[in-house]
């Protein structure tokens, strides 16, 4: 082959060739499409332009397919997935971890002070058997548990050598206070281990968990909402 005299491919009809990328427009007049397609079939220069266009477009598709990048109107992007993950983690932790106490606590403060662990103060639990758990009191032979209604009338009593006990359904009214005392009675002051809780349906329990979950689940939930908003705004651009 002899040396090339010019700089390579040249459009065979520049007046038509300058419109060649219109072929990628879906709403193209059929006569114009026929002309451009026929032009592309004989013009290697324009074929190169189209191929370049296709190459760049297919790269974007393969990148978004492998990295989860954003594609308008398709799957959520990385931000969207992060939002879903944060919300899911927040909900899971809210369901697993105990909620924050609500209202004043009567029991003692500090790590060494005996206290009721569950239910926490003001917690809404499902109607039925209620599990009560507390911290062990050094020197206690056994524990006495008393449930009272809002008027202070005793609805149930029980004793155990363990640090938990299950209250039957009839022990709980819509609002119940639990008092745990240790024996011998002089080990802890009376009323130190006390908590009140309410019973409700599944929706009441869920709402309470969401409203009074700990700092970590709430931070994850808030982060998820913010990320979700950011993902929505990006998709609208």
């Amino acid at each position, binding site marked *: *082959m*002899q040396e*090339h*005299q*010019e*700089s*390579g*491919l*040249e*459009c*065979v*009809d520049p*007046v038509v060739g*300058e419109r060649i*990328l219109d072929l990628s427009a879906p709403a193209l007049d059929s006569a114009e499409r*026929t*002309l451009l397609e*026929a*032009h*592309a*079939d*004989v*013009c*290697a*220069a*324009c*074929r*190169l*332009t*189209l*191929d*370049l*266009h296709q*190459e*760049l*477009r297919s*790269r*974007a598709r393969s*990148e*978004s397919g492998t990295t989860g990048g*954003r*594609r*308008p109107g398709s799957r959520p992007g990385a931000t969207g997935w992060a939002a879903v993950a944060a919300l899911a983690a927040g909900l899971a932790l809210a369901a697993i971890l105990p909620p924050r106490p609500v209202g004043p606590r009567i029991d003692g403060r500090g790590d060494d002070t005996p206290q009721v662990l569950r239910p926490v103060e003001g917690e809404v639990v499902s109607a039925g058997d209620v599990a009560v758990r507390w911290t062990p009191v050094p020197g206690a032979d056994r524990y006495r548990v008393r449930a009272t209604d809002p008027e202070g009338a005793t609805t149930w009593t029980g004793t155990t050598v363990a640090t938990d006990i299950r209250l039957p359904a009839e022990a709980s009214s819509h609002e119940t206070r639990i008092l745990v005392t240790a024996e011998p009675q002089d080990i802890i002051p009376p009323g130190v281990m006390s908590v009140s809780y309410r019973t409700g349906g599944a929706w009441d329990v869920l709402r309470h968990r969401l409203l009074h979950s700990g700092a970590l689940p709430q931070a994850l939930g808030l982060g998820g909402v913010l990320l979700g908003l950011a993902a929505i705004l990006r998709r609208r*651009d």
Partner: protein
Amino acid sequence: MMHEQHHVSADCRQYIGGDDAAAERICVALEPAVRAGVTGLLGAGDPDGDDVVQEVLLALLAYLRRTGIVPDNPAAFSVRIARNRCYNLGIWRRRRRAQDVDDHAEALPSLAASPLELMERDQKRRLVDDALADLDPPCRELLVAVYRHESSMEKLRRRLGLGSVQAVYHRRNICLEKARKFLNRRLFGCRSDRAYP
């Protein structure tokens, strides 16, 4: 010369109108110019020279019937097709020589194949990367925004301060044309640039 072109254009119109005999007159009239263009690039004794000339003339006839449009200058139109064909043939031959396999002995590449189609995937990717890197920053950013980030044309219109999205498409087309010219230079330009294929 002008007179001859007039005749060829008239024959082209007759061929479009259904006169098959006009095809012979068109080929007779254009064959010398096409052959000269092919010989100028491939050399007089090239074994594929005759095939290229025939392909080009047949392609012109097909184009006329398909579009119903006569090019302003049928001779120049045909010679450009022929020259492009020869350039692509050069790339195809170099690739065959580099691979030295019989798998490619079957047929010549299609008449208007893009040079990128004739390359290995990695070569193609490198070449396009180089073309993007060679662009001026505004063009590069625009193509990245359009293709990689898939930004909407309306968003780009606002960002660029343009009056219509058609203006964005126009600017994108100009940038693609710059990239195409780079590829042209790289593939067919001076010898020192011939890193590909």
